[in-house]
């Protein structure tokens, strides 16, 4: 117990790397990117102040912006909820005392390790191409081949599958959370005659709600910025149907070298992410339950 706080300045010494890193590689870049977003900055040469010109152009004269925003919203809306519900359901199934459970946990986690690697994107391209394995497989069962990557209706879904496939890390967090729910709660509910579904909705979900919130926020932030699979598998096509926001930022900044314009785009994305995360946080007051087990 401290009666009076006694400061120990040695602490600064230990966190010094982070202080420098934060200032130099996070804060200053953040300020700079805000400044660039009001300029015409072509990489070679100095940024020239434009006022709100970039933003005006984005909202009024850039059809790819709207397309990309639409695609990205669909992507986040499909991939994130699917990934989290998968992770939750499978964590619950894995949370039982049957033999070999560790093996299954490991197998389901492996896709998460490989993450957004290029190798997986290449693999996906081969699996889902016209004469690929997936079409061969569904052909065996009598279905017609589907143009998974070439048809604008399906391409985004196929890309989202890569993301959903990596539900393992969210699953591990849910598993850790499930282990913390006291068994006595379940027993009490069962004595009261609660069925499986009731137990799920009234005990499991509320107890896990802080972890659901954490997963939701982190996965959302990541999904809004996803890049690799769409870039490698479809290059944003066909007809820009997989042109995720990350691809647009890359194209504007590193293909056309419009650093100012790309910075403005990145601040709009930042605002969108901030809006949705704070909306989620705000809503969480009504559905997240902070018990004493966490």
């Amino acid at each position, binding site marked *: 117990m401290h009666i009076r706080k*006694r400061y*120990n300045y*040695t602490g*600064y*010494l*230990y*966190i010094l*790397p*982070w202080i*420098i*890193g*934060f200032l130099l*590689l*996070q804060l*200053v*870049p*953040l300020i*700079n*990117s805000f400044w*660039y977003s009001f300029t015409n900055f072509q990489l070679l040469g100095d940024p020239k102040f434009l006022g709100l010109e970039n933003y005006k152009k984005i909202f009024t004269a850039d059809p790819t912006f709207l397309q990309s925003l639409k695609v990205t919203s669909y992507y986040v809306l499909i991939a994130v909820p699917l990934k989290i519900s998968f992770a939750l359901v*499978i964590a619950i199934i894995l949370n*039982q005392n*049957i033999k070999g459970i560790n093996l299954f*946990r*490991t197998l*389901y986690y492996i896709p998460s*390790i*490989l993450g957004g*690697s*290029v*190798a*997986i994107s*290449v693999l996906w391209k*081969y*699996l889902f191409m016209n004469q690929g*394995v997936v079409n061969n*497989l569904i052909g*065996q069962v009598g279905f017609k081949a589907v143009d998974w990557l070439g048809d604008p209706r399906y391409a985004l879904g196929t890309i989202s599958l890569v993301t959903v*496939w990596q539900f393992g890390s969210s699953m*591990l967090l849910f598993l*850790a959370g499930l282990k913390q729910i006291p068994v006595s709660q*379940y027993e009490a509910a*069962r004595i009261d005659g609660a069925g499986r579904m009731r137990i799920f909705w009234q005990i499991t979900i509320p107890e896990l709600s*802080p972890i659901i919130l*954490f997963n939701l*926020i982190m996965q959302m*932030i990541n999904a*809004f910025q996803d*890049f690799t699979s769409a*870039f*490698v598998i479809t290059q944003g096509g066909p007809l820009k149907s997989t042109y995720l926001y*990350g691809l647009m*930022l890359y194209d504007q*900044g*590193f293909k056309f070298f419009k*650093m100012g314009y*790309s910075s403005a785009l*990145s601040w709009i*994305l*930042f605002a969108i992410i901030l809006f949705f995360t704070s909306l989620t946080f705000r809503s969480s007051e009504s559905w997240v339950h902070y018990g004493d087990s966490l």
Partner: protein
Amino acid sequence: MIKRKTPTAKILSYFFLIVLAYIMTYPLLWMIGAAFKSNEEIFGTIGLLPKNPMFGAFSAGWKGTGQYGFSTFLYNTFLMVIPTVVFTAISATLIGYGFARFEFPFKKTLFTIMLSTMMLPATVILIPRYIFFRNLGWLDSYLPFIVPAILGCFPFFNFMMVQFFRGLPLELDESGKLDGCNSFIILKDLLLPLCKSAIFSVIVFQFVWTWNDFLNVLIYISSVAKYPVALGLRMTMDISTEFDWNQIMAMSLISIAPPIVLFFAAQKYFVEGIATTGMKN
């Protein structure tokens, strides 16, 4: 649920788990099989096992088509990943210790700032960082990966270590102080041996993330001689003709092997580390 299972329920669980495991691992199993198949067999059949296993794809892919083979790309990746991982582990440990064990002015504020940078979208600072590193003449080198690691720019790992240190009993530090040890000796000799699982988690995570990183290497590394596997693989895919599928699968397989091997080697510590530091506050 923690209920005693009837035999049917048990069989059903197993059935579901096995089917799902098959679906989840199918793409990878297919990749392994394809690396040993002939190109005609890859797309003509749906079987996972190659009829006549061939190793030609590995040697051909390894040599590569251009001036640089896959061995160069693999070597480059290690050159980039290992220092990044080592420095991340060191800086996260120091920073975690600093936040967890010392009282200093503005500690709360600084800690809150660090937590909030966890949610700062990386894309927002991508361009200014690129320009900063460019002005320093660091483009086409691995410094844009290593220096942020030295400077503890991965708040997630710092936070993990803070949580872990908070879980260690303060009596350890007290006993060290009584013996006249300074704070660094306390960290090095008393606390560090207990941090194994947390440090392993940092190492595995950071290794995997840096190994798989694509956007940053795409931006920073421009000469083929310095390409890591992520770029090498994409280049190979782009320049290869339709008939090199098995080579590309073989090289993809090699490129995902190191993260998987590391994961299995450190699995015990790793899962423990997530369970003890991941979510509790």
